[in-house]
């Protein structure tokens, strides 16, 4: 992905305009990314089990709350505005990444507990999503 980002940014800064067929191909192929990612998120949530509700909830609230606080705080401190501010806060306030479970399972660091964290924080974030968006968009 790093190559993609480098190519993309370089092309943007150099004002490159690839031929239309290239852009159309990229656009069509790129269109599968978001749907596949969201479907995968749903499937992952379905297969992970929740254990230790109390600790899981505490840590979920910590992740979401910390994310929100740092998002707003840093954007204020660094003077981020508009779309950059909105996206930064959204990204910071996201629940525990599913990839954390992948690493936990691979290195055997409490995979079950991390799985619960992913599920609980994601479900919790769905509930707080309207509030988050209202704070960011309004």
């Amino acid at each position: 992905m790093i190559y993609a980002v480098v190519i993309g940014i370089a092309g943007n800064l150099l004002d490159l305009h690839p031929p239309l067929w290239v852009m159309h191909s990229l656009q069509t192929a790129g269109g599968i990314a978001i749907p596949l990612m969201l479907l995968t998120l749903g499937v992952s949530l379905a297969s992970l089990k929740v254990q230790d509700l109390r600790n899981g909830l505490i840590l979920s609230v910590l992740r979401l709350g910390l994310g929100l606080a740092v998002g707003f705080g840093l954007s204020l401190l660094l003077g981020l505005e508009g779309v950059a501010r909105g996206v930064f806060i959204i990204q910071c306030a996201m629940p525990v990444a599913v990839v954390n479970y992948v690493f936990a399972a691979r290195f055997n660091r409490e995979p079950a507990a991390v799985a619960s964290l992913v599920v609980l924080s994601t479900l919790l974030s769905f509930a707080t999503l309207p509030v988050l968006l209202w704070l960011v968009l309004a």
Partner: protein
Amino acid sequence: MSFAVLAEIFTVIAPLFVLAGTGFLWAKRGRPFQVETVSLLATNIGTPCLVVHTLLNAEVDRDMIGAMTLATALALAIFMAVSAVALRLLKLPVRSFVPSLTFPNAGNAGLSLSLFAFGQPGLALGILFLRLRRWAISPSARRCWRAAATCGRCCSRR
């Protein structure tokens, strides 16, 4: 809360729920879904194409790129520091849970939301955040984190 803002919020989150919900039901019904294959497709074909296309088209201020990168780096560092302290106070295993509390779902959920809420420019900036977060969670970065943590522990002992 005005109706217009509510409607806008609904427009943003609806696809997230519809698609994630579909995936959820799909798995619950026991239909075949090889996460590994799908992830490979998304990571090797979908995301790179999306990234190149979005960044090439993006009408993003040059300064925003730098600002976004700096902000992301600071945010991740703060997440890591605060969660390490909090976990110690809660008497929970620090090394097991610090990554979970530090690395948000800036990909599946975050990119989708950034796109739905702010369109292509939002997606472009979201990609920058994700890029840095992906590096930070990678094995090569972990060595840096471990070194920093060791320094921190030494300093706090003195």
